[in-house]
């Protein structure tokens, strides 16, 4: 089997074409840079935004609690390492990004007086979440806009490594998952936009790893590639995400349900969230998930439901028929399959799977520890991703304008070319499939590193990870699609192994989507970020900041 080699060059390389990547590409192109964006998927459908979105978070300086200081007070938390400077970048990008989305043809909901229709969500002090009409069309519309403005889009290329020239970014390498081409991209600057969190590391009740909340095709490139290139990653042990899912189905939508007044009831018919958050269901999501988990431990469920039967007919219609299909286009097909009508009966929900990730550490100008490598994907929502992508794209374009083209390490490129196809063209005698391997990974993560865990259980998990590691060389593929999945499996394994080690460092409970049974209380001294990095020999290193 022969593989062609393709070499591209660009000023600004955008790594990932989801919401972050779109923001970065648009800003860098507007600044006059030559921009190339690369992604394993296709721009029209890639990333979490490929599934649609029904809300865009923005402070607009028109209402109470509607400005930069409010935004910074909420998002610049010590634990994540997100600074007020980075939040300012997001703030300054919000109005431009809204204009871009409107230029691209996206429609926001308006009140009769012409103002944006907005709701309060996630325990925030102001109504920051603008309602979107036809949210499932966001990605195709943005894709059309981006292609038209002259961004070079390289679809279907799975990035496997970042390339460096001394201490600066020099590009990336990967391969085309449809035709097998080996791809090298050289750049002056780059922006990491591969996504804050990854799925396929734990199960929901269906044990179907692709039937999940966020995109199951995002598998840890953001953190793994950054770490391997020498960047550090903050908050890997606190970035767990989880939500309440419609029973049996990996769909978003809980923000819309909570912010419009949905009431969560346990199996006894009791509304219980007041015990866990002063804003009840519309408080912090970690409180909703862990509160529901606590109810379950106490025998008050399952089942759990979200009750919207008290809504006005118009609110119920807007929620079920405008917002929910915007968040996932197939929502109404699910409703038909289960005879769901928000006006007539509550929606059964379950605690979903857990997602893990982390924030690549950066300066206020969003530059990582690797010179000329910028980062976005610092927030997991559409607006945060796009707006911080937009600011990172601006910074990356400005630096590219004063930077020469770096050199590529040809020996590293040749080494990758000679090995990346091995699972396909040189399989071992008894190959193991990616499905078998990933089932094992989730078995470890669910059993030893679940909602409740201890130092002992996590150390035992690391022992099991050593067994899984023995299977890595045996992963086999029979076609390009399977080879792509094999590389995803390898990445997920690396992500989980670093994550478990990071979790061992945080000896407290109360800040995350899990509990340390051996450290059940909050430790005020740990209200700060834990930075994770890799030493030259590959050992994981930690530093409290």
């Amino acid at each position: 089997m022969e593989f062609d080699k393709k070499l591209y060059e660009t000023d600004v390389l955008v790594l990932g074409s989801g919401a972050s990547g779109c923001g970065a590409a648009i800003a860098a192109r507007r600044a006059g840079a030559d921009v190339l964006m690369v992604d394993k998927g296709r721009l029209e459908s890639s990333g979490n935004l490929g599934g649609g979105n029904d809300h865009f978070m923005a402070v607009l300086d028109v209402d109470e609690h509607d400005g930069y200081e409010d935004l910074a007070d909420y998002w610049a938390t010590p634990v994540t390492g997100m600074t007020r400077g980075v939040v300012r970048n997001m703030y300054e990008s919000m109005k431009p990004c809204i204009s871009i989305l409107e230029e691209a043809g996206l429609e926001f909901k308006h009140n009769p007086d012409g103002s944006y229709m907005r709701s309060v969500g996630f325990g925030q002090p102001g109504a920051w979440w603008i309602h979107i009409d036809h949210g499932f069309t966001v990605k195709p519309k943005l894709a059309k806009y981006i292609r038209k403005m002259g961004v070079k889009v390289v679809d279907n290329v799975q990035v496997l490594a970042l390339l460096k020239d001394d201490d600066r970014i020099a590009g990336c390498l990967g391969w085309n998952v449809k035709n097998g081409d080996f791809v090298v991209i050289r750049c002056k600057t780059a922006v990491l936009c591969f996504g804050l969190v990854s799925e396929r590391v734990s199960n929901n009740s269906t044990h179907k790893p692709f039937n999940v909340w966020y995109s199951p095709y995002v598998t840890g490139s953001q953190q793994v590639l950054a770490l391997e290139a020498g960047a550090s990653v903050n908050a890997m042990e606190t970035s767990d995400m989880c939500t309440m899912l419609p029973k049996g189905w990996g769909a978003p939508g809980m923000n819309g349900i909570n912010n419009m007044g949905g009431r969560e009831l346990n199996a006894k018919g009791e509304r219980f969230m007041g015990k866990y958050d002063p804003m009840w269901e519309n408080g912090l999501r970690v409180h909703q998930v862990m509160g529901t988990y606590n109810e379950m431990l106490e025998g008050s469920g399952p089942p759990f439901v979200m009750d919207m039967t008290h809504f006005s007919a118009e609110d119920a219609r807007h929620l079920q028929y405008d917002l929910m299909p915007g968040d996932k286009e197939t929502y109404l097909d699910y409703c038909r399959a289960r005879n769901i009508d928000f006006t007539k009966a509550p929606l059964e929900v379950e605690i979903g799977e857990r997602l893990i990730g982390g924030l690549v550490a950066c300066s206020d100008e969003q530059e990582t520890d690797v010179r000329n490598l910028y980062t976005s994907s610092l927030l997991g929502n559409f607006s945060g991703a796009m707006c911080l992508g937009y600011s990172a794209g601006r910074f990356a374009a400005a630096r590219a304008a004063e930077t020469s083209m770096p050199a590529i390490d040809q020996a590293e490129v040749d080494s990758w070319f000679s090995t990346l196809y091995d699972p396909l063209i040189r399989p071992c005698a008894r190959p193991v499939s990616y499905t078998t391997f990933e089932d094992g990974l989730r078995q470890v993560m669910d059993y030893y590193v679940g909602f409740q865990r201890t130092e002992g259980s996590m150390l035992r998990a690391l022992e099991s990870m050593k067994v899984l590691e023995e299977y890595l060389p045996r992963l086999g593929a029979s076609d390009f699609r399977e080879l792509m999945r094999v590389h995803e499996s390898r990445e997920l394994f690396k992500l989980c192994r670093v994550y478990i080690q990071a979790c061992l460092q945080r000896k407290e409970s109360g800040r995350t989507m899990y509990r340390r049974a051996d450290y059940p209380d909050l430790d005020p001294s740990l209200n700060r970020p834990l930075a994770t990095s890799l030493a030259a020999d590959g050992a994981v290193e930690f530093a409290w900041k």
Partner: protein
Amino acid sequence: MPPVFDEKKCVKCQKCVTNCPGYVLRMGKETPEVAFPDECWHCGCCRVACTQSAISFEFPLHTRL
């Protein structure tokens, strides 16, 4: 068995196949087909890309339990 294709409406343009973010679809003899149903995210990108309204959705058993 997530997307279901109406062969009377399908014009075999393969836009659904191209836009599937999970590489779950492939072209069959008459219409596209779901080659890897367990890896479908139910995102509906195939239906958004379809200009002929040829795609409906049938939810698998585990989503009804």
